[in-house]
């Protein structure tokens, strides 16, 4: 465990922050510009995982375990969310025969 912490601390904290921000931004862009629901879900996972990575880095730098515990919460709830999300996508697919968001524009102002 100590070895991992020193290894994580081998890279400056700023690099983690910039790296995770970039991954998060890629996730956000993916959600905003992609039209395929599966890809949108992958992008959301990317956002959540960048958060996990950053939490682990902060946690190692501060020598505080609560950040890593939080990662487990995020993972568990992300898994629950994906289970429900995939069920919803299957339900939509049965009715529209597609996993695109384009046909889903019945509700508009």
């Amino acid at each position: 465990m100590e070895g991992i912490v020193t290894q994580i601390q081998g890279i400056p904290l700023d690099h983690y922050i910039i790296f995770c921000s970039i991954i998060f931004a890629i996730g956000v862009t993916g959600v905003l510009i992609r039209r395929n629901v599966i890809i949108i879900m992958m992008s959301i996972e990317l956002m959540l995982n960048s958060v996990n990575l950053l939490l682990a880095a902060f946690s190692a730098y501060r020598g505080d375990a609560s950040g890593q515990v939080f990662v487990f919460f995020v993972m568990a709830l992300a898994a629950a969310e994906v289970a429900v999300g995939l069920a919803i996508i299957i339900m939509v697919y049965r009715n529209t025969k597609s996993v695109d968001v384009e046909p889903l524009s019945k509700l508009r102002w």
Partner: protein
Amino acid sequence: MGAIITLSILGIILLYLGLYNAKKALLPVTLVGLVVAIGFYLALWNEAANPIFSGMVVFDHLAITFSILCLVITGLILLLSKEYFRSISENIAEYYTLILFSLVGALLVNCYHNFAMLFIGIEIMSVALYILVGIRKTDIASNEASLKYFLMGAFSTGFLLFGITLMYGASGTFDLAGLRNYVNGVTTVSPLFYGGILLMLCGLCFKIGAAPFHFWTPDVYDGAPILITSFMSTVVKIACFVGFLRLFSTVLVPLDTFWTPVLLTIVIITLFTGNITALMQSSFKRMMAYSSISHAGYMLFAIVAVTINSGSSILVYATAYGLASVIAFGALILVKRRTGSDHFESFNGLAKHDPWLAIVLTVAMLSLAGIPLTAGFIGKFMMFNQAMSAINVTLLVFAAINAAVGVYYYLHVVVNMYFKDPAEEFGKGLDISVNYRVVLTIAALLTIVLGIYPDFILSFL
């Protein structure tokens, strides 16, 4: 904590009741569970409000009052559910279970004292709702609403989490007391913390449906079954506001020069988009969705000008808004059952067929519009009063203009009910069950009582 455990177990019991086909027992058992939960909260009232479970949750008066409000509103909504769920699905036990699980999430958000609980509470609340919104499996509108709600909910959770992470990176704790000590203790707050505030603000504004993060609200409210819409626009919204308020009033008050301008902009945009778009709606349900956006704007006033009184202002406003929404959606269910549409024209001539329903709905609309002698007026008055003491008067002028715009579209329904002739084919009266009469009457009476004698609720907080 007893209440949260009771409701979680109750949800599982209800699933078994559904399995053994005890459909008649579902509603009574649920209501008994809700009453027991309220009892647990009342028992906590005189206890010292210290964070428990290693600082995870705190049952102070803010948490207790809002939790009881959520429980009461859920009870009212469930009383309306008796025939409604049966008409849209076979498996009604799942409805009750999912609504209860969602309520558990809302109660957790009400009492959080650690970001882990805020996050878990919001997720429990939302994941159950994703399913509830899409529970009419063959209805495309319901499917679409469910998918949109899911994608937007997960997206906003990402923002919320990134915000939490940045705050953790700056302060090294998820605990609200620890964060407050950090903000008060350091001379210069780390830039990471400011980034965290902005991202959390985005995430929470998504959840409460404040502009410019509101675009999912009308679609989701429109596509979801009506009772689920009423649950989302009352209980869920109220819980998110408590989460908002707790974060800002305990931690972020010293940094108000940073976030006040941001939040003010959000309030102004929210009020204008909500009200002006509501003006252009032809469907009552969509109008209520946009009106819920504008009410989120009014409630944000209390957070912009956060003081010791913010809790009671939000409590009064949320009670008024919750009761009026229950009445409005209950009436919409009855009207839609008769005419099959949720357009304003469906309400034509309602006063002739059923004067009682027309009067009750009028009270609700007046309360939402903020006319004196209703609870909505007291709520708006307290919000504006608070805003005036803290912020400048020009903002108040904006708010007053918006309130005036609101009166127009709420009274549209009232005018249709009293002054338009009904369509011929719906000549006969409505068939309204006792449950509806009791719930809507109670809600209307409470609205008027609160409007005349607001001290009754203010004394709680």
